[in-house]
């Protein structure tokens, strides 16, 4: 037997519980995988970890004493990247942090610290993009509705932004990749799962679902966007650098229909 593989439920709490267990039982952890995914290590013992709030909190508390709030955020964001093997990278970084007396969370010459910092930056960028590119459409039942398809699982970290900005309107942001939505009903937000009709589209204002004026606002926005361009300054390369083509689908001002 060489080391232990930990299987957990895929939640952040579950992951923190893995760390707790690894330390408590002095395991030589070689892999941490979400349930449902195949492990790479064939000749290791596998242990199933059940998420435990108390254990997770203790890990968080221990971490808080040794790292800055920025690093706490980075750890959380890196986790949401869902990158294959991200759990072990985090595990290595956290072990390094716990194993040294000094604060080492900004030691960028350590490979895991640098890796986590970089991947957290990518997640941060995706968060920022979604905050920018979400396009709400007003539905017939008075909900501002948007579809996203983010590279990373950013719903939990864009929540705060939208909640404080759109406090007086109902809204729903739906991640079609992960099939989960975030709904705000004027009082609280909650995660919802639902089936979307196929013809709802990522932009446009199908009158079956959307309020009658909706399509006109998209047209006005496109009109605005077109008028604000200065032809003698066009620079498509720079343009694509700012908004990579895969994000264009969100932006109704770039769609040909309007």
């Amino acid at each position: 037997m060489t080391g232990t593989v930990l299987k957990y439920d895929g939640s952040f709490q579950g992951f923190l519980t893995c760390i707790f267990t690894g330390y408590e039982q002095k395991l030589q952890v070689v892999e941490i995988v979400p349930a449902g995914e195949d492990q790479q290590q064939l000749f290791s013992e596998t242990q199933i970890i059940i998420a435990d709030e108390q254990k997770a909190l203790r890990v968080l508390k221990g971490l808080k004493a040794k790292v800055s709030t920025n690093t706490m955020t980075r750890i959380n964001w890196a986790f949401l990247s869902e990158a294959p093997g991200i759990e072990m990278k985090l595990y290595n970084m956290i072990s390094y942090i716990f194993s040294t007396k000094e604060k080492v969370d900004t030691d960028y010459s350590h490979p895991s610290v640098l890796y986590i910092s970089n991947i957290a930056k990518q997640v941060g960028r995706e968060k920022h993009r979604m905050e920018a590119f979400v396009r709400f459409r007003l539905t017939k039942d008075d909900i501002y509705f948007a579809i996203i398809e983010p590279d990373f699982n950013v719903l939990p970290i864009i929540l705060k932004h939208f909640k404080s900005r759109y406090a007086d309107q109902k809204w729903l942001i739906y991640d079609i990749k992960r099939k989960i939505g975030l709904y705000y009903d004027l009082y609280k937000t909650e995660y919802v799962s639902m089936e979307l009709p196929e013809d709802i589209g990522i932009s446009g204002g199908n009158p079956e679902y959307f309020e009658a004026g909706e399509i006109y606002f998209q047209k006005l926005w496109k009109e605005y966007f077109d008028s604000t361009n200065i032809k003698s300054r066009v620079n498509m390369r720079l343009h694509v650098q700012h908004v990579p083509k895969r994000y264009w689908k969100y932006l109704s001002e770039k769609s040909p229909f309007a």
Partner: protein
Amino acid sequence: MDFDRIKEKLNILADAAKYDVSCSSSGSKRTNTKKGLGDSSGMGICHSYTQDGRCVSLLKILLTNHCIFDCAYCVTRKSNDIKRAAFKVQEVVDLTISFYRRNYIEGLFLSSGIFKSPDHTMERLISVAKKLRLEENFNGYIHLKSIPGASDELMREAGLYADRLSVNIEIPTKSGLKLLAPDKKHEDFMKPMEKVKNEIIQYKAESKLIKSTPKYAPAGQSTQMIVGATGESDRDIMYSSAFFYKNYNMKRVYYSGYVPISTDPRLPAIGTQVPMLRENRLYQTDWLMRFYGFDIRELLNDQNMHLDMEIDPKLSWALRNRHLFPMDVNRIEKQQLLRVPGIGLKSANKIVQARKFRKLNWEHLQKIGISTNRAKYFITCDSREKELRDLSSEHLKQLILKTSHSKFRTDLSPQLSLF
């Protein structure tokens, strides 16, 4: 809403407003209170980008493009034969709210041609902002143009509803202004700026004593200068800019390469290239002045009236001051690190953090993200490999040019990361 009519107005009045390059929506700290709409306490967000690579973050329009003045450099000038239009106050309010609720924008940037009188125009601009704040409970970003010549009382009121106020100086020299806008007086620009500056200072002092003091233009003032319309030197432009930063506590000065829009013989002919590279170099210089601790006189002076277009102003400065280099990255202060070509604000911070743990060598520096292909000629680190340094500055410049990325030469925009 009559969509077709609104669409036509939007077309005319957005088109006329686009030459104002400012699109910033940050620095306001206005939070959403009482469950209203919007919040501008964070960083500004670009919700889209135009094809010329500019950030779209605000609904930027004129209230009207009717104007009683005839400034040569402006599309809205009286003598120009163009379609004119005017929004009603309520139309601007509705459009702003509908766009904001759909997450298209961070807020409104409202400017205007001057109809009837400066005060009359300013009053209308204020009433849009007032309606948004008081009737719609809107906490998004509002940028109003201060109309040159508007009264002190109106400027005072404007700041109570707007996050930012700006007067565009447009022409960096007095002589240029006289040539191109003879019916406008230099003082007309300065007066509202002065008033806003003083109000900001006063409100800040009061809010320290009395918590409930209302906000006054929390994101400050900005201005814009047109580049390349009157034959001014880079030194003229940047000295004016330094003057505005210092004397009017400007948050930002924008530089806008002149887009030829007129056959007026006093101006560059239609079809003349927009000086985008020059504009970019000016922004870099502005950055060095505000964040890198450079005094503008180090970068531009009697011997150096113009910026080097081939290389960025920091490298250009370093090549003129070779006696200060090489510096030892493991020892020098952060302020010195910032003066090294190839080291930016972020990498300077990272170096300061990382060198606490170990002496840094080339490999560390590369991972941290400094651009070693230029920095290597100006620094030493914990490594025996060193670059030849007995090259002449001109030779060194050619060497760096040969190896530097094309982004320094082709993609030029004020919003590009700068070093």
